[in-house]
């Protein structure tokens, strides 16, 4: 705007250069400033960290600070007292000296009798000269000047014993003498000293009367140089003492905290080792002091912990052993029963119908018994903490594909369609494929069983920390509160409901344990009459915690076009997957769901 309004102005024509130059110089400066600021911030953070993490440092610093404050207060009080004493003393002697000298001067003047101005002036010089030379060590200056209210002829000029002039005498002092001529007046002033600095000095003033010349004021100036020197020495001593004392305090604090903090640090190290499983670690506990007591009670705690952990370990070992034995003991007769059942089942056509049916029931129930036994063993393995992950980097799409293959037969039997919403790219995570397949098989079989023949939607999702699979049906759904209960062992939504797939009632409990073993989540959502949705979220890398699931737990509104048209949150940044309102048909066809290829699932 500015530039455009003065296009021809040669001065303003150069103006646009300025901001450009400013910009050119700006960034490096700003960068430097930013670097400095970030360095400062880092230093501050480091200091804060050190301050927070070291009890010892805190103790030492606060002791030294408190000590410093105390020493400062005490020192300045003492210094003040000493200074006051010294000055008062000096002022007292100064007063006495001044009084006697004034009397002597007055006597000299009185005895002079009548004189002419010149000899009077000479006398004044002599008197001042006499007064100002007391000895080598005690210097004092003298000023004789006309009183302010002396309006007579100025026969005697102001007489000075040195270069300290009348102007140095404060007006207040002169006024005080004028107001009360019969008394001495004292005040402290500063005068220039010989080495160029100023020194305080006590000025004692009184009135003398000169014959024929009238009232004069006689001032004695006593420089407090010696007192000041003494005070300087005192101050230096105090400062040195304060520094020494604060350092001493710091040292004492250091030693004391060392004595206390060291065992505490050792205790912390031992406690860390204990908690990392090294149960034999103990603290050193010598002596009878508090630290030793800490050590002893710590060790007692460790002993009792170790004992209890041992007991638990033994218990768990016994439990595992028992489970293993039960496994063997039950499995061998079950094998015989199963083979016998198979044999009878194969020749059931030779029997009359009731026996043939019995053979079929026997055959099927042995299967169910076996899966129940397997589930029970699996659960007790989780309970004993004996379940171990066998992780490998796996594409969840493959795992899901195998799951869908094995559940295809069940879906076909129940007339349920399995719709898959695949994720855009690969869906690789470090998982135990056997366990994850078991979870997915469980979820899909459940959805088929409770989906009442309506389509079951299986959706895959991925973000940078986690992969997820959600399995949703539009069947009976879950009543409020049941979303948590479904994971309980042997829980049934409706005890009267007929079971058709012959689940063991342990499937979801095992699935949740499997998910937990991965460090993953298994969540359920449901609404009566709307449907239910189970979502499995697994970390992509073992040990890296999940922050959020790539898939919503609650399915978004299901329109006529079906859930296929839903957009995946995990795909937000991906290239557009085409029109959002896709007809449901092609998408489910293009999905990797091998619904038609029957995998000849055995179970």
């Amino acid at each position: 705007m500015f530039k455009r309004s003065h296009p021809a102005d040669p001065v303003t024509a150069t103006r646009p250069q300025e901001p450009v130059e400013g910009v050119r110089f700006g960034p490096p400066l700003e960068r430097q400033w930013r670097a400095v600021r970030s360095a400062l911030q880092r230093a501050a953070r480091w200091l804060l960290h050190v301050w927070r993490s070291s009890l010892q440092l805190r103790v030492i610093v606060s002791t030294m600070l408190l000590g410093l404050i105390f020493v400062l207060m005490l020192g300045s009080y003492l210094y003040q007292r000493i200074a006051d004493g010294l000055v008062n003393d000096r002022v007292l002697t100064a007063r006495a000296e001044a009084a006697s000298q004034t009397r002597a001067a007055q006597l000299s003047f009185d005895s002079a009798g009548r004189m002419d101005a010149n000899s009077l002036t000479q006398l004044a010089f002599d008197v001042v000269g006499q007064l100002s030379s007391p000895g080598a060590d005690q210097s004092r200056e003298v000023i004789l000047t006309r009183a302010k209210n002396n309006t007579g002829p100025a026969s005697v000029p102001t007489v000075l014993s040195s270069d300290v002039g009348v102007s140095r005498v404060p007006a207040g002092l002169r006024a005080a003498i004028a107001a009360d001529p019969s008394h001495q007046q004292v005040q402290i002033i500063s005068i220039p000293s010989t080495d160029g600095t100023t020194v305080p000095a006590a000025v004692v003033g009184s009135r003398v009367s000169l014959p024929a010349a009238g009232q004069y004021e006689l001032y004695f100036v006593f420089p407090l140089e010696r007192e000041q020197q003494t005070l300087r020495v005192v101050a230096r001593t105090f400062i040195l003492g304060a520094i020494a004392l604060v350092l001493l305090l710091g040292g004492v604090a250091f030693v004391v905290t060392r004595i206390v903090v060291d065992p505490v640090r050792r205790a912390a190290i031992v406690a860390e080792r204990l908690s990392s499983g090294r149960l034999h670690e103990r603290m050193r506990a010598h002596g009878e002091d508090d630290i030793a007591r800490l050590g002893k009670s710590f060790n007692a705690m460790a002993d009792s912990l170790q004992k209890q952990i041992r007991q638990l370990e033994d218990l768990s070992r016994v439990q595992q052993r028992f489970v293993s034995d039960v496994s063997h003991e039950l499995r061998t007769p079950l094998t015989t029963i199963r083979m016998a059942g198979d044999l009878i089942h194969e020749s059931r056509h030779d029997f009359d119908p009731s026996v043939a049916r019995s053979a079929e029931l026997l055959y099927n129930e042995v299967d169910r018994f076996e899966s129940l036994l397997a589930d029970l063993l699996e659960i007790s393995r989780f309970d004993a903490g004996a379940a171990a992950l066998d992780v490998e980097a796996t594409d969840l799409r493959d795992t899901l594909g195998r799951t869908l293959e094995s559940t295809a037969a069940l879906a076909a039997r129940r007339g349920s369609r399995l719709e898959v919403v695949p994720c855009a790219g690969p869906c690789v995570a470090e998982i135990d494929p056997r366990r994850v397949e078991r979870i997915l098989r469980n979820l899909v079989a459940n959805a088929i069983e409770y989906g009442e023949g309506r389509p079951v939607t299986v959706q895959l999702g991925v973000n940078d920390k986690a992969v997820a699979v959600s399995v949703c049906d539009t069947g009976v759904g879950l009543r409020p509160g049941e979303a948590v209960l479904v994971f309980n062992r042997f829980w049934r939504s409706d005890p009267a409901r007929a079971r058709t797939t012959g689940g063991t009632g342990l499937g979801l409990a095992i699935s949740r344990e499997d998910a937990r073993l991965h460090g993953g989540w298994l969540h359920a959502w449901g609404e009566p009459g709307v449907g239910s949705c189970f979502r499995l979220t697994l970390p992509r890398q073992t040990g890296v915690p999940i922050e959020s699931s790539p898939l919503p737990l609650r399915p978004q509104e299901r329109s006529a076009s079906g859930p296929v048209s839903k957009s995946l949150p995990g795909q937000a940044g991906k290239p557009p997957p085409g029109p959002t309102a896709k007809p449901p048909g092609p998408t489910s066809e293009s999905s990797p769901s091998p619904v038609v290829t029957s995998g000849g699932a055995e179970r």
Partner: protein
Amino acid sequence: MKGRVLVVDDDLALSEMLGIVLRNEGLDVVHCANGSAAMALFRESRPDIVLLDLMLPGIDGIEVCRRIRAESGIPIVMLTARTDTIDVVVGLESGADDYVLKPFKAQELIARVRARLRRGDEPEPEQLQIGDLSIDVAGHTVKRQGKPLSLTPLEFDLLVALARKPRQVFTREVLLEQVWGYRHAGDTRLVNVHVQRLRSKIERDPEHPEIVVTVRGVGYRAGPP
């Protein structure tokens, strides 16, 4: 299917049931109820395949397996109720060719036994060369520079399967199907354990195999690395 099966299992009911099922398949069955007598019976009956329970009174199944393997390369199929990895692996490492988990189905067991017995039915004259090994498929011998190496039939089958298509990578699943006769997914640990056993016999340095090479993330192949 003809052949003689030695069943070593302490559970009499299961042994009898196994006998019934196997005889129905036309096999000859010899039974032994404890580990101590197993070796004597093995030498006496000269079976074509051994079904061996891992938990036995007297000498345990692992030890029996080791002793049989020391004498002969005949197929051994373990019967185990232990599903824990360590039990299975220990069994396989002691020399078993295959295992079935209790409770198994009759057809499953028969399939396993059949797969182990089927081999050698149709010996076709064939000479293979892999690395510095020469394999006579019909004569069932592997020689390194004229010196014969002793392999069990299963190890031989595994080597032949790999050597027939050198440089082709076999996944563990494919090997399970070709060598063990699994039609569905089986336990890939079987392959791992037996490849290691095979390497310990045929490789000059089993730590740095040159004949059976691991292809990371895929499986195995024969040939120079």
